[in-house]
């Protein structure tokens, strides 16, 4: 990858691999910063007038009508085709060094996870059900999806997630080089100086990019991290070992975990909610409430794309990812009233806050919902 933390679980990329990745990063940045803003102009100059010609004035401001109108515009088609193509190319490009190094990385993972000096744990129950939504949808077009597991030694889902994830986020201008956990930890330490949670849970941890910073920032805490894909978790656990962090990884559904009531002082998630359905998100909030000890705190961070603050055009334009980047829950997350949902899950209204979480490498903010268990 172009920018990332160095550790023993990364594929060896040649100078040519890195050059191809940098090309894609540059290309995606151009698309995002110079071409994509033109979608608004396309809407204002061609799509809206055409919709107004065919529909009543109010219907021309309808999100669904705008989506259809945009897709028929040749300039929007060009942006769409380039955006989709660059995303597909990104995965093919980061897959190449992984394909060359696959066997070495699998062996490396085995040796890290079986080492007598290992710090953490990896808990993969044999009877864990296949998590269908994550197999059907290849989120961000990640090859075969986050939950794909080819064998009992497979690590590809996690390796791809890490290799592609940062490049993708940076290309989107969404701060791939920003530490989401770092932003949350800084904010929590300002809120509660001297905060020393004994047990921390990271829900929907993927490759453990956020789990590791919690383990390093709170060395006396027991950090647990859960997700649904075995190959993803195997990679996450090996990566955490390679970085010298003690994290206990478990294959669990965030909406129905196997932990006891009230056993965590801090429950967090990072960029989880735009990847799960309304039902799973609400189950996760109920589970958060159940798992927190009295006085405990949750912080659920995600991208700041709340539709309540956006025009119909902005909502329609942002929904591109739903259809062409295999992000089926992007729009229902953006529509959600998360503060209200946390209250429905059991939290007292006065303890729930929705905040702009400043990025570490600003400018800009993440969205976060914070609640305390009284």
């Amino acid at each position, binding site marked *: 990858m172009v920018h990332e933390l160095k550790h023993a679980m990364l594929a060896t990329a040649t100078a040519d691999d890195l050059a*191809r990745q*940098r090309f894609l990063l540059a290309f995606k940045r151009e698309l995002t910063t110079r071409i994509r803003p033109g979608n608004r102009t396309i809407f204002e100059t061609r799509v809206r007038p055409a919709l107004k010609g065919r529909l009543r004035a109010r219907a021309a401001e309808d999100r669904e009508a705008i989506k259809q109108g945009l897709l028929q515009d040749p300039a929007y088609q060009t942006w769409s*085709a*380039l955006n989709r193509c660059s995303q597909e*190319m990104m995965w093919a490009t980061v*897959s190449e*060094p992984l*394909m060359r190094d696959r066997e070495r990385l699998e062996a490396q993972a085995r040796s890290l996870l079986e080492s007598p000096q290992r710090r953490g744990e990896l808990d993969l129950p044999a009877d864990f059900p296949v998590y269908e939504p994550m197999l059907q949808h290849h989120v961000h077009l990640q*090859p075969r999806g986050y939950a794909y597991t080819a064998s009992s030694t497979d690590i590809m889902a996690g390796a791809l997630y890490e290799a592609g994830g940062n490049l993708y986020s940076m290309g989107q201008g969404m701060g791939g080089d920003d530490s989401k956990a770092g932003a949350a930890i800084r904010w929590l330490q300002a809120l509660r100086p001297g905060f020393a949670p004994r047990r921390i849970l990271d829900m929907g941890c993927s490759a453990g990019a956020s789990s590791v910073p919690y383990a390093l920032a709170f060395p006396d805490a027991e950090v647990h991290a859960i997700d649904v894909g075995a190959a993803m978790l195997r990679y996450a656990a090996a990566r955490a070992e390679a970085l010298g962090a003690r994290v206990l990884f478990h294959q669990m559904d965030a909406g129905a975990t196997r932990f006891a009531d009230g056993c965590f002082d801090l429950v967090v998630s990072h960029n989880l909610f735009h990847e799960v359905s309304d039902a799973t998100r609400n189950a996760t909030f109920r589970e958060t409430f159940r798992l927190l000890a009295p006085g405990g705190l949750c912080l659920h961070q995600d991208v700041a794309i709340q539709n309540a603050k956006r025009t119909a055009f902005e909502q329609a334009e942002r929904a591109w990812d739903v259809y062409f980047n295999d992000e089926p829950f992007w729009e229902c997350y953006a529509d959600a009233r998360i503060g209200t949902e946390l209250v429905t899950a059991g939290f007292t209204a006065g303890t729930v806050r929705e905040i702009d979480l400043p990025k570490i490498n600003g400018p800009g903010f993440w969205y976060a919902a914070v609640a305390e268990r009284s």
Partner: protein
Amino acid sequence: MTPLAAARAAIEYSAQPRVHFFADPAVDRVLGITLAVAQEVGQVLERLDTMERLLVEQGALKSGAVQAFVPTPAIAAERLMMQEAFCSRLLRVVEQELVQLRQEQRSAAPAAATAAGSASAVA
């Protein structure tokens, strides 16, 4: 695994359902191929940059010497031919379509001439 096998394996592993945005999917296909070429050009640019920097570092080249290089008229002429050959290869599909059109025109011409000849003969 050879670089060729890795490239092919990566393409196979990362295959997604094809989507198209233009009325004719061929346009999406051409765009995809063009973008792949652009990515390779980006990689070549970096290689050249690396070569230049290594040569400067090792004292074989003065910094800025590549940009300051002024070709003699003979070299400039050679280069122009090189660029023309490149452009010909680049425009292969357009040119070959014209070649085909001209061949059709030629093979149709004698028949047309014969037809015109017989018509005038009848008249």
